[in-house]
């Protein structure tokens, strides 16, 4: 993900907003029957500049983290809502004193389990710990989460060979990441073996870390899939946005077809292929695509395929057409169903968008990503996007909208 780093940042009012409360799980425990999006299975999302006051198109949420089985809890705000990853990760600085109360996961030989969480062009390094994780009226017990804390052990060379480690608020732009894509564990079967292990999990004795096999249930988990109810998936619901804005509000609704506010209705089901992608057709060519609330723009193709120039440095990760460009693409299911939908979207000049210093919500922000369609947060505006989890929690994996 990229962000608008060229802007002058007015700091202060954000910082780390940690409100201390004993209300573990926060919110009502009653069940809504009104379908108005305000029931106990609904947690508010805000799209704004985030806790470091510089994030473009970041969807943030508050997560309650507790020492397992206790009322020792903290509400962590400014956690990025990310359908493109799996599992909860929180900065140690945001956890504060709660960090030491969270049990450290150990390897079979008793060494601390420390994770190199691999994102596309960065890594997060830090211990796997256990916590109760709550949102709205839901709470998952004893969930393996990652505490982002590069101080626990030196980052192994193989981990650093993937990309820079984001270790703090300044580099992450968020107090954490809530990975709620359709998989339940972050690495999956590949990390359960000795050979062919991509190296997410390390057993660290002192400063010496070795890749270790990690059972899928021990891996950092999508906490929503571990809720006692409304755990088969979720809905990301954001309003339509017609122009740049400082902030918009939406909802993360837990469950699919479990309450009156999360019925699939007429939404079409897009199942992923083996790589976790659907198919996107643009000008007659089929590309891999995916729906990712954690990407802050439409990232697709390149200037040659789209005719839109990259922005000048340092914003070369975005498109800068001279005037807004209207585009059409078609999403098809990656496997199984015959779902198809046409998407009309517009890309505007990112530098011009960023020139409005008050705005951090951009429905027309786009950037290059050759041969791929990353349907980032702007895609979610004006839609209810369903994410159905894989078994055993849900009947996915699929997206629906």
């Amino acid at each position: 993900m990229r962000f608008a780093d060229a802007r002058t940042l007015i700091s202060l009012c954000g910082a780390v907003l940690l409100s201390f409360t004993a209300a573990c799980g926060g919110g009502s425990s009653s069940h809504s029957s009104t379908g108005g999006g305000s029931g106990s299975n609904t947690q508010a999302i805000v799209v704004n500049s985030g806790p470091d006051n510089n994030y473009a198109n970041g969807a943030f949420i508050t997560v309650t983290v507790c020492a397992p089985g206790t009322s020792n809890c903290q509400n962590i705000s400014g956690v990025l809502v990310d359908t493109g990853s799996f599992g909860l990760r929180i900065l140690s600085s945001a956890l504060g004193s709660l960090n030491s109360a969270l049990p450290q996961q150990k390897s079979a030989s008793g060494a601390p389990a420390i994770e190199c969480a691999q994102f596309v062009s960065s890594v997060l390094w830090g211990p796997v710990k256990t916590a109760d994780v709550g949102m709205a009226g839901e709470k998952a017990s004893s969930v393996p989460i990652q505490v982002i804390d590069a101080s626990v052990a030196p980052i192994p060379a193989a981990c650093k060979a993937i990309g820079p480690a984001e270790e703090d608020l300044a580099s992450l732009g968020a107090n954490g990441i809530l990975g709620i894509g359709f998989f339940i564990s972050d690495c999956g079967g590949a990390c359960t073996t000795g050979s062919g292990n991509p190296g997410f999990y390390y057993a660290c004795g002192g400063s010496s870390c070795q890749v270790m096999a990690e059972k899928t249930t021990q891996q950092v988990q999508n906490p929503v899939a571990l809720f006692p109810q409304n755990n088969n998936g979720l809905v990301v619901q954001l309003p339509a946005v017609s122009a740049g804005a400082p902030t918009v509000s939406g909802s993360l609704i837990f469950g699919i077809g479990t309450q009156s506010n999360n019925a699939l209705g007429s939404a079409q089901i897009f199942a992923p292929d083996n790589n976790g992608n659907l198919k996107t057709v643009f000008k007659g060519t089929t590309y891999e695509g995916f729906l990712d609330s954690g990407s802050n723009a439409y990232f697709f193709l390149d200037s040659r395929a789209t005719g839109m120039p990259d922005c000048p440095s340092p914003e070369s990760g975005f498109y800068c057409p001279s005037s807004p460009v209207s585009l059409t693409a078609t999403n098809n299911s990656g496997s199984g169903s015959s779902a198809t939908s046409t998407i009309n979207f517009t890309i505007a000049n990112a530098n011009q968008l960023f020139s409005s210093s008050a705005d951090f919500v951009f429905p027309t922000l786009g950037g290059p990503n050759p041969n791929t369609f990353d349907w980032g947060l702007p895609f979610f505006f004006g839609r209810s996007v369903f994410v159905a989890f894989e078994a055993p929690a849900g009947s996915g994996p699929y997206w629906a909208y």
Partner: protein
Amino acid sequence: MRKFGTWIVFLTPVLVLLWASPGFATLGEDASSIQADQVHLNASVRVVATQFYSVHEMNTPTGTTIRQYVSPAGQVFAVSWQGFSPDLRQLLGAHFDEYMAAASQTAHRGRGVHIETGDLVFDSGGHMRYVVGRAFLRSKLPSGVSRDEIR
């Protein structure tokens, strides 16, 4: 679709490769660096020749596919990858630091990098468990080769 030639050769990994220098190289290096990569990555290799270059395709034990594009002069002018993230230090060689600088500057959540400022063109994207990327050197692209062929 790329215009592949008609012949395909399967290179049988031979023991001597295990003794190849474990040089950290590839992009911009000569083709012998691929052998070092193959050993380092414990990968099998398939070579596909086209009119203008050959593609050395590796599949690593993690299921990651890596393609290295070799010019007639024997130089690696492009690499691409898909799957779990590969060892980019190994693949990018001398250009790794450019990638790291760009990723540190613009990546705010690790969802991709686009570099197209100097000789190096670099792109990555995707999501957790599945990363797609490519890198090439503009000055080393053989004539007649489109960047669209590198994927």
